[in-house]
């Protein structure tokens, strides 16, 4: 779907921002471009929609070189979301969201339906926000509208440059969750820039980790966390990488892999849902909120008891027994 072929970018004839990068992104995949600030993530992203020229190498989108595509037409088929939302302050929310469909000449009815659909998708009431202006919205709402605008003409590909980077942590977590939910529904091919390993692990089907413009490792979050390709990767993901990997799993994954301790109806036990992240489970167990947790399935039936020992066993199994996956 999206192929980076030996891509390099040199600014002003001397500053090498992207250095011979090779990797492919499959359809429907969300790939996080990760790395410290200044490592060339934004530059790489902007070469895809040709906001920056490619110095050397090429990028293919659907087997066609982006260099040879008509820039304007191509950009209208690629969603683009930036950190500072970039909404047009002089336009209403509806005009903002519908700008690309409008340029593409969609009729009024089709635009209206699409606007309503998108606003529902991002969790804002269409009629309430239609005639409002960007500055009347909170930061989180503006960012949601930015996402809706990028999705407006239903582009197969989305480029997102630290889309939630400017939001405060609580809103950020919330929007990340919402967006993952949306992605489940829309299945876009997404390049998502981040400098935050936690965000990358949470959002990415795959992570491409960069340093000084060079690709260090490109693989599933699990592989990055458990089998760092080199010193830099291992340092970047941090010494708590095993803990970080726990957010990759839900209670259900654990239940499917190791058997729970039996449950006796004695005293009161805290319950967790099957879709809870393992990270939260560990936090609860360590927090002395409870020594054990009862796992509840979607129907409210208790399936068994979960303890720290079991979590440890599960993680050990994952790390040692999961076959090596490649990007």
């Amino acid at each position, binding site marked *: 779907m999206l192929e980076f072929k030996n891509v390099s970018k040199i600014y002003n004839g001397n500053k090498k921002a992207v250095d011979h990068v090779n990797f492919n992104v499959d359809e429907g995949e969300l790939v996080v471009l990760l790395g410290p600030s200044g490592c060339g993530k934004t530059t790489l992203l*902007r070469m895809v*929609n040709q*906001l920056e020229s490619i110095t050397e190498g090429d990028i293919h989108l659907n087997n066609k070189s982006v260099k040879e595509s008509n*820039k*304007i*037409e*191509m*950009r*209208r088929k690629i*969603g*683009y979301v*930036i*950190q*500072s*939302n*970039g*909404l*047009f*302050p*002089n*336009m*209403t929310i509806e005009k903002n969201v519908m*700008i*690309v469909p409008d*340029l593409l000449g969609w009729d009024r009815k089709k635009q209206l339906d699409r606007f309503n659909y998108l606003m529902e998708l991002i969790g804002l009431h269409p009629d309430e926000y239609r005639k409002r*202006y*960007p*500055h*009347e919205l909170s930061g989180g709402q503006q960012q949601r509208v*930015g996402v809706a*605008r*990028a999705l407006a003409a239903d582009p197969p590909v989305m*480029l997102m440059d630290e889309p939630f980077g400017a939001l405060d942590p609580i809103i950020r977590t919330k929007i990340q969750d919402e967006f993952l939910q949306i992605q489940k529904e829309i299945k876009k091919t997404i390049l998502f820039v981040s400098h935050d390993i936690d965000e990358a692990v949470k959002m990415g089907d795959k992570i491409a980790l960069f340093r000084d413009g060079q690709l260090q490792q490109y693989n599933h979050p699990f592989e990055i966390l458990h089998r760092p390709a080199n010193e830099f990767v291992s340092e970047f993901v941090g010494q708590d990488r095993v803990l970080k990997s726990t957010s990759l799993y839900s209670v259900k994954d654990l239940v499917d892999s190791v058997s729970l301790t039996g449950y006796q109806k004695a005293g009161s036990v805290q319950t967790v849902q099957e879709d809870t992240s393992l990270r939260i489970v560990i936090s609860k167990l360590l927090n002395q909120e409870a020594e054990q947790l009862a796992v509840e399935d979607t129907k409210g039936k208790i399936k068994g008891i979960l303890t720290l020992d079991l979590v440890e066993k599960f993680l050990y199994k994952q790390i040692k027994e999961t076959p090596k996956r490649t990007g």
Partner: protein
Amino acid sequence: MKTKKRIAWIVKILFWLIVITFFTWTIMNDMFRPIVEDFGEFTHLLGQHIIIVFISGLLAILISIPLGILVTRKSFQKSEFWIVNMANLGQTIPSLAVLALAMGFLGIGMKAAIVALFIYSLLPILQNTIAGIRSVDKNTIDAARGIGLTPFQILIKIELPNAASSIIAGIRTALVINIGTAALAYLIGGGGLGAWIFTGIRLFDNAFLISGAVPVTLLAILVDYFFKIMQQVLVPKGLRLAKK
């Protein structure tokens, strides 16, 4: 806050008291006699005054705004320095000297006055156009490019609406200055209400002086007010709200 409001009120009341006193005095002393006695001549001079201001202002708008747009295009960035400085030069030379220079080239008459005032009005509009376009958030432009707007669409849909307030403010400033300066047109034979003002000065006749100066002042206030309303009409609602 309260004291500020109170002071504003006192200033306002004082201002209107002075205005009322002034007009009572002028009317009691029959200061508008020239207007009443020679109404034909008055409308003639007023018409000349308006034509000078209108044509020179319109020309300045028609030249300055496209020039400002041109200068802010990426490929023309280097020309900005020269263009702004040339307009600057027109502005820093005293208005009387610009008039004299224009007269040197075009001889006496209304044409020279119009050209001089045109040169004099260029800068405020040009500067405000450039500043207005420059003030548009870089990220907004970047987003617009990224989602596939053409440079022309970015100009029409994003840059100009966002710069509208600043551009109109520039026109407002230019025209108000222009109306006052147009009184000097008389000195190079350009006509206008300056005729009565300078006659009044020469003959120590306050009636002529006031019959010339008061309409000029009122005209300036009227035009200023008109553009204040234009600002409300032409500046997109989202931006007006954002300012508050």
